[in-house]
């Protein structure tokens, strides 16, 4: 009989997109062939995506990493591991010591990638449910105070303080109240919500249950985009586990408070990430933006008081409550100024080491892209970086020293959004990107207001003319006017912020908007606009 071996292989969709299932099958087959006593645990991802499929093997209580592993490499890998060696070409040493991970400060993602995401015992062992137990002993007001004191701000994009939103809901006399988790994550360059829902879904459910206890809401909804089938499957399995263990229902942990959660799928509409459009969609309607006021905290889902929070906002709450009164430093001591806590930065696009980097606010964009990201995947110089999704600004390579805080980014004419960072190398055509920004807005506009619905179409046409060298100066003036109109006259940030990527592209990369055919200046140019 050989010594038992435990291996961890991610089941995260991104890891599977580069072969994690095939590796897991190869490991099982090879283990059988060699007569090894293997336990394979499928986990979430650590978020070091360039190392996926990342296989971890436990030895003396330490997890050793191997990656990226191909099915062909499995035989040699297992032979070495079984013989107690650590010299396979894919060997990375102890996973926790890989600098990319070791230099992070994981709080929201502390558990992600460590265990089978549906194993409730493992969840407890890793500190799960501590926050919910703590909340069950507190009054609603005390829970709200703890969240307010933590300084936690909304991670969906707007950065509104979570505690203040919860307090408003708590103060409403109306019942029932709702907690709606925004898991529509439509921004290009973002995948943190997906990673958490697939890798540590119980943390999200725990955060929602705490939000329910804090505000008196009895029903929760998670609104997940349909482009995330794996997250939908994992969440729905997680809900079944929680229901089976009495963690959802009439009396949560003997607190006397009821809470249940229903999963709802989106149906392919970016605008349903905007909170009021999401609420319309949850009511079974077209996803059109509502006029504010009233705010959802006062009149939200079905006209009732509603907490709307992003996945990461809710998933951070259990950590905050679990830490309260404990030995770990409080959440609000992390970060800079009013940008408190940690942010899950997502390194995406043309980047060598793409993945999730959770760090306190204040780290520079350059550190993220260079020290963590390792520069571009193509090996060419960085030319532009879009921060904060399709409505976020493009920053030039010379502006990378900006500290990543809400305030510093706003000063630089940019925004953090959901923390997505998309890197482009020097082959990018920024006029094509500006045209795409308008085009995306035109495609995804809910159609409720004219500046956005018509403006975006006109904007895309006008930038296309500029790219063809037609009346460039006059058309640039027209774009500026359109942008002003959209900024001032749009009902929501879809139309209101589309000018941000467009104008930042024109401001920082004027040479791409000159009257010559862009292909002459950029031989590597590819057509971007659909």
């Amino acid at each position, binding site marked *: 009989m050989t010594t038992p071996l435990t291996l961890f292989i991610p089941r995260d*969709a*991104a890891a*599977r*997109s*580069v072969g994690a*299932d*095939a590796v897991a*099958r190869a490991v099982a087959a090879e283990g059988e062939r060699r007569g090894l006593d293997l336990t394979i645990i499928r986990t979430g991802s650590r978020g070091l*995506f*360039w190392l*996926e499929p990342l296989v971890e093997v436990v030895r003396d209580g330490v997890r050793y990493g191997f990656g990226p592993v191909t099915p062909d490499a499995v035989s040699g890998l297992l032979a070495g591991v079984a013989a107690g060696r650590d010299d396979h070409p894919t060997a990375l040493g102890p996973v926790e010591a890989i600098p990319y991970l070791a230099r992070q400060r994981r709080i929201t993602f502390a558990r992600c990638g460590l265990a089978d995401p549906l194993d409730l015992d493992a969840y407890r062992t890793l500190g799960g449910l501590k926050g919910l137990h703590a909340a069950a002993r507190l009054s609603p007001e005390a829970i709200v105070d703890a969240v307010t004191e933590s300084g936690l701000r909304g991670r969906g994009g707007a950065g509104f303080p979570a505690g203040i939103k919860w307090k408003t809901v708590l103060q409403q006399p109306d019942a029932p109240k709702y907690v709606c988790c925004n898991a529509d*994550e*439509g921004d*290009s*360059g973002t*995948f943190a919500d997906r990673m958490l829902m697939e890798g540590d879904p119980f943390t999200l459910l725990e955060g929602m249950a705490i939000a329910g206890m804090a505000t008196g809401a009895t*029903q929760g*909804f998670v609104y997940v985009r349909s*482009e995330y089938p794996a997250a*939908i499957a994992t969440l*729905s399995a997680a*809900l*079944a586990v929680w229901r089976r263990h009495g963690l959802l229902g009439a009396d949560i942990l003997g607190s006397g408070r009821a809470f*249940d959660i229903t*999963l*709802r*799928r*989106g*149906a392919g*509409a*970016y605008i349903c990430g905007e909170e009021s459009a999401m609420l319309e*969609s949850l*009511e*079974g309607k*077209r*996803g059109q933006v509502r006029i504010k006021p009233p705010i959802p905290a006062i009149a939200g889902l*079905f006209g*009732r008081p509603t907490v709307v929070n992003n996945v990461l906002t809710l998933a951070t709450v259990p950590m905050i409550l679990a830490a309260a009164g404990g030995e770990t430093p409080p959440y609000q001591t992390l970060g800079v100024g009013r940008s408190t806590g940690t942010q899950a930065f*997502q*390194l*995406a*696009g043309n*980047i060598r080491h793409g*993945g999730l980097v959770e760090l306190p606010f204040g780290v520079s964009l350059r550190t993220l892209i260079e020290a963590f990201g390792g520069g571009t*995947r*193509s090996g060419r110089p960085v030319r532009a970086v*879009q921060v904060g999704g*399709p409505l976020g600004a493009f920053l030039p390579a010379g502006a990378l020293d900006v500290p990543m805080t809400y305030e510093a980014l706003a000063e630089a004419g940019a925004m953090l959004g959901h923390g*997505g960072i*998309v890197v*482009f*190398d020097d082959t*990018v055509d920024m006029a094509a990107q500006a045209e*795409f920004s308008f085009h*995306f807005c035109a*495609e*995804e506009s809910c159609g409720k207001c004219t500046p956005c619905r018509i403006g975006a179409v006109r904007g895309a046409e006008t930038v296309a003319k500029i790219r063809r060298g037609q009346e460039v100066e006059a058309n640039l003036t027209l774009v500026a006017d359109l942008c002003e109109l959209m900024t001032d006259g749009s009902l929501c940030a879809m139309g209101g912020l589309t000018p941000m990527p467009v104008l930042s592209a024109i401001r920082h990369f004027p040479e791409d908007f000159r009257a010559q055919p862009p292909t002459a200046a950029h031989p590597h140019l590819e*057509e*971007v606009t*659909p």
Partner: protein
Amino acid sequence: MAQAWGTLHPPTPQPVSAAACPDIATLCARHGGRADAVIEVLLDLQHAKGCVSDADVAAVALALNLSRAEVHGVRSFYTDLTPEPVAHRRIRLCRAEACQSVGAERLRVALEVRLGTAIDQAGPDAEVALETVYCLGNCALGPGVMVGDRLVGRATVDRVLAALPAGEDGDP
């Protein structure tokens, strides 16, 4: 919709499979007959039948006590819901910014040539449909492509085509 919040929301039912799609009344009952679950019901139908037909719109409206215009309005708003059948085999190519930065448009052209079909132009009886999607949440491993329900990272024409025949589980 006034009463919608009054009754309890039933636990999340598992999405239906194409093989075993119950009739519309049963589908609606799975969601407690709640009008706010109309999108869930339409998605179930879309997955099972490849479209939401006009007859289905009428039947769902009846079952959920909505007007036909309301259900029609929902179907026309959401990209995932289509009146005409979509191809059985779908290749959805991410064309959002992060994937653009690593050659999504080059991949689009290559796929169009290889499949002999223009993107977003497949007719109702196309063998394979190539479709635009904006972000699949795999932006660190782009270009991202979804073949059926299966994500292909760092996609190339060969890796996409290799994923095509099975389209359900396993890896490229």
